[in-house]
């Protein structure tokens, strides 16, 4: 810096250093994700193609593709059930979340922050305990069940626990905030003048909603449905606490194969299939729903 000569030399080096800065910032975190997210997926893929058993001296890598066939054949019904439960929970959550997010965004007024707080409040209690709270609420001698029995909505020996409905309700509850927040965020971002313009041009409130508000909030709906559907389809706590043996989901199978039966290749094959199915479904969904919905964030930054 002191001598002109030194400055000449440092200029390109400084530019180079400046260009390297983002990589230094990214480096440690991305390496962590590579080592402990991407590499483990590779190992899981490997494990899913191994054969053998713990009794006969462990597993060996043999390109055992039949693991996939066996696992899918044995647990097909759990797969179907998982996606059915997750899909139902997503639809119900959307029906609850959209009007709620709409009310908070457009009617919230000075209560907005308090209402948003109420939406995220479930996150502040332990996941397992709030699911157990539902177990309490739906348990056989709870006021809910006895009220429903008195009203004739439920037979005398009828139960709420250990039914499909209980598991779907639990999934809906546990992932509802993931649905509300993105929808709220996209509604909040809408320029109210666009809706007013539609009204000025003599559209009815309903038409303005369907033609202006709803399309503009689509990115939030897409993000919300994904954030609900993905964790719900892999979940096994709700099925375990609120369901019976007939409600077991694919997550229950993966857990017990890994941790209890120690049949690692089948468990790995199932996990891989679950991930593949979800990725394909997400891909199709995004294609269908319009990719700009998810890339909205990127597009906004590019502006």
């Amino acid at each position, binding site marked *: 810096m002191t001598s002109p000569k030194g400055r000449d030399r440092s200029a390109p080096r400084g530019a180079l250093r400046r260009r390297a800065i*983002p*990589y230094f*910032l*990214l480096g*440690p*975190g*991305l390496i962590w*994700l590579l080592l*402990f*997210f*991407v590499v*483990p*997926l590779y*190992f*899981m893929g*490997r*494990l899913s193609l191994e054969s053998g058993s713990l009794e006969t001296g462990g597993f060996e890598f043999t390109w055992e593709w039949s693991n996939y066939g066996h696992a899918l054949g044995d647990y097909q019904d759990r797969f179907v059930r998982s996606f059915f439960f997750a899909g139902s929970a997503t639809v119900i959550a959307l029906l*609850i979340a959209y*009007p*709620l997010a*709409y*009310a908070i965004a457009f*009617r919230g007024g000075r209560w907005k922050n308090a209402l*948003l707080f*109420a*939406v995220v*409040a*479930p*996150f*502040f*209690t*332990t996941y*397992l*305990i*709030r699911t*157990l*709270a*539902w*177990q309490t*609420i739906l*348990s056989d001698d*709870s006021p809910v069940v006895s009220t429903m029995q008195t009203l004739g909505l439920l037979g005398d020996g009828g139960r709420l626990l250990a039914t499909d409905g209980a598991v779907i309700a639990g999934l809906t*509850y546990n992932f509802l905030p*993931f649905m509300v927040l993105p929808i709220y965020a996209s509604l*909040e971002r809408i320029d109210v003048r666009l809706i007013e313009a539609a009204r000025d041009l003599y559209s*009815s409130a309903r038409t303005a909603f369907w033609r202006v508000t709803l399309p503009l909030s689509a990115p939030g709906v897409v993000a919300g449905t*994904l*954030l609900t559907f993905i964790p719900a389809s892999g*979940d*096994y706590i709700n099925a375990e*606490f609120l369901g019976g043996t007939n409600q077991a989901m694919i*997550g229950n199978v*993966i*857990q017990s194969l890994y*941790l209890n039966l120690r049949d690692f290749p089948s468990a*790995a094959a199932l*996990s891989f299939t*679950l*991930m593949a199915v979800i990725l394909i479904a997400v891909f199709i969904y995004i294609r269908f729903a319009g990719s700009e919905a998810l890339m909205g964030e990127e597009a906004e930054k590019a*502006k």
Partner: protein
Amino acid sequence: MSRAWRAVRERALNVYAALAIAYLLLPIAVIAVFSFNDPEGKFNFTWQGFTLEHWTNAFSLPPLNDAFFLSLELAAASTLVATILGTLIAMALVRYQFFGRRPANFLIVVPMATPEVVIGAALLSMFLIYGLELGFATLFIAHVMFSISFVVVVVRSRLIGFDRALEEAARDLGATPLTTFRTVTLPLLTPAVLGASLLAFALSIDDFVISNFNAGESVTFPLFIYGAAQRGIPVEAYSIATILFLVTVVAMAFTVWQQRRAQQMASIRPEQEDEPYAGTPAMPPAPGAAGG
């Protein structure tokens, strides 16, 4: 459309929203109420009588206590590391143009779009193949991993609204880069980082699925509850859950307050009504400090 019908419809939406909020809060109320229950058997399912016993003794059950403090330790350690790594990534993504941005973005988003059971199973597969002993270290690795993406998302969303002109002004007024960072950048960044670390902490202390795969003999708070669920959960667990809830509420109120302060600080600059520019303090506060 008649006025009466409109009034009914407007009420209907509000009533619907109120019911949805009640639905969201109901289990929390149940947890709090049942922490005062005095169950006769092992199962805390039906209301049998009021007692303060499980609050005064909240921290006197050794296995529950150990599990809770292990969770606190784990959450503190993983939050610290994940917040640092995630904040650095967010700064790189918001402030620099560089080659490889898309794959970097992709690598950050995919873990959030992967079911936890798959993440847990994949990590366990790797640990098994390497023959690593499961315990605090493997839990720590896993918790940092799944927290990083969330930290990036929260910090990035707040950094995008960051007014770079404030830093330029400080530099123009003769501040050194270090002083600028200390007196302008850091105070404006603090709420975002605090909010992100709060989220990371909450994710870590609440994680069951991934921990269940990689804990080995270690027992965290959620793992303890899972193990105890079959035999009947001690009521003290409800008290601790309620305490945890209250502490998080206070912590969140604090970050919201910090956020407000940062906004006030950023709005020292006079508004220029005619010239809208990116990152004006007119930006609405980010929804919910817990973000996503």
